[in-house]
C-alpha cells in the first residue's frame, strides 16, 4: 500500500483518476495548481487506486494525503 501525499501547498485543479482505477507507475492521478503551474501528482507504484482524498477546488498543504494505492 502506498500513500500519495502533496509535495507542496497547492489548489486541486483537476481530478483525473477515479477510485477503483488500476494505475501504473507514472500515471497522473490529480493535477494541482501552484506557482502558476499545472503540476501532476503521479502514481509511484502500480496498483489499485483505493481512495482519493481530494476534490477539485480543494487546497492541499504539504504532506496532505491525496490518494491511497493498494
Amino acid at each position, binding site marked *: 500500500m502506498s500513500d500519495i501525499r502533496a509535495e507542496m*501547498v497547492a489548489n486541486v485543479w483537476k481530478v483525473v483518476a477515479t477510485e477503483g482505477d488500476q494505475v501504473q507507475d507514472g500515471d497522473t492521478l490529480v493535477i494541482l495548481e501552484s506557482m*502558476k*503551474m499545472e*503540476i501532476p501528482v503521479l502514481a509511484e507504484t502500480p496498483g489499485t487506486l483505493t481512495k482519493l482524498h481530494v476534490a477539485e477546488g480543494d487546497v492541499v498543504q504539504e504532506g496532505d494525503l491525496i490518494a491511497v494505492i493498494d
Partner: protein
Amino acid sequence: MTVLDSRTRVDEAAGGGPAPAQPPAATPPRPSRDGALSRDPEARLQALFDPGTVRLLTPHDASGAVAATGQIAGTVAVAFASDPRVQGGALGIAGCAAIVAAYDEALAQGAPIIGLWHSGGARLREGAESLHGVGLVFAAMTHASGVVPQISVVLGPAAGGAAYGPALTDLVILSEQGRIFVTGPDVVRSVTGEDVDMARLGGPEPHSRRSGVVHLVAPTDQAAIQSARELAQLLAGQSAVDLSKVRLDTVQDEIMRLESRGRDITRSPADHLPDSPRRAYDVRPLVCDLLDGPGIELHPRWAPNLVTVLGRLAGRSVGVIANNPLRLGGCLDATSAEKAARFVRMCDAFGVPLIVLVDTPGYLPGVGQEWDGVVRRGAKLLHAFAEATVPRVTLVTRKAFGGAYIAMNSRSLGATKVFAWPGAEVAVMGAVAAIRILHRRTLADVPPERLHEVEAELAAEHQRESGGLERARSLGVIDDIIDPIRTREAIARAIAEAPQARGSHGNIPL
C-alpha cells in the same frame, strides 16, 4: 608496495595487525541470485576490470580487504574490495592499510578508484586500533577528494565505518542487496525501540528516495559493477568535443539518411515543451535528445524536481543539470539545490563541463522550506556555480524567474554562455504576479468584472517596460537566442571554444 600477479598469493598481512593465521580458502562459487557476484573479493575485482588486466596490490589474505589495479575499457583504474567471508568483512588495521595502499596507488597514477563494499565496519576485537585504521581510510579518501574520481559500489551490508567510507566518495552505487547504515536494526531496536529490518533502515528504497546517500540503485551486483565502469569512463576518459558530430549540416545529412529509411527524427528539441506555458512536462527526454545517448541519471528519485545526468555531448563527457517541471513544477527547493550543488562541485573538480537547462518558476515558498534551510542549502548552489571554473553553458528553454534564475548558472555567476530559446521568459517573477505587487493599490479599486482585463493591460505594459528576453540580451545576461534545432551544436561549440579548466577543490559530500 608490491605489485603481484593476481594468481600469486602472499601469506603476509599488509599492515601487521593481528590477523587469523589461515587465509580464506578459494571460495567455491555460491549458488546465487541472478546477476549476483561471488563473495570472494578477488572475484569481484575480476568482474570490475577488463579481463586479464587485474594485478593485486596487496595480498589476498585474512586482512579483510584486497586492493588491485587493472583497466576499465582500456583506462587504468584502481580498486579495493572488502572480504565478507572474514568476520563479515569487518575492517581491522591491516584491511584498512590495504585500502590506504589502493588510494596511494590511485593518486600516484592519477587513476579513478572504485571501492567494492560489503563490511560490518570496524573489527570489534581490535578495538581502538581498528577505529584508528578506519579513520585513516577516511583521511585518505578526503585527501584524494577532487583529485581522482572515487566511486563506491555497495554489494552487501555496509555498516558503521563501512557506511561512511562510501559516503565520502563522489558516487555511490547500491546493489539491490546492498544496505547502508550507521547502526543496524538490533542497536536501533535496543536504543529507540523502533522495529525495522535492514532493507527499510538502509536499503534501496530509503537511500534512493529519502536520504540521498545513494546516487544509483542497480537491480543486480553485475549491473552495479557495470554502472561503476560506465561512470569511471565518463569521469576518467572524458575525450574532446568533436564538432562534426553535432554540426547541423552533418546532422541534416543524418536526418535525410534516417528519413529515407522511414524514421522520423526531424523533431526539434523544443517539441518536448507543451503548448501551454503552465503545463508540466518531463524534462528527461529533452536531456536525452541533447546528449549523444541517454547518459546516467544520478539521484533519479531524490529531489526529482531537478535532474542531474552524466553523459556525452559530441563525444565529450558533460554534466547536465535541468529543472524538471513534472515535479514541484520545476521549483528549486532546499534538497534539489543541495543535490545540484554537489553535482556542480564534482563536475568542476574533475573538469567535466556543465550544461544547465533552465525552466523554473522560482524557489518553492513555504514554512517547511524555510525551516528546512532553503536559505542555507540554496546558498550552496550559488557558491558552487560561482566558484566553478569548467565551461558551463546555460539554456533557458521556457522560463527563469527570480532567485532561481540567478542560481541556475546565470551570467552573473560566471556562466560561459547563456542561451535562450525564442519565447523564453526571464524575469524577477511572471508579469501578472509582478503587476499585482507593483499596482496593488490601483487594482484594489478596480471593479471585479474589469479586473482580468486591467491586469492583462498592466502585464503587457510591464513586459514592454521590463523588457523580457530582448532586454536580457541587450544587457548581456543572455548571449544568444538560438533556434532549438541548433541547440546541440551551439552548446558543443561553446564548450569547445571555452578554455578547458578544472576546479582546485575537494568534493565534500554536501
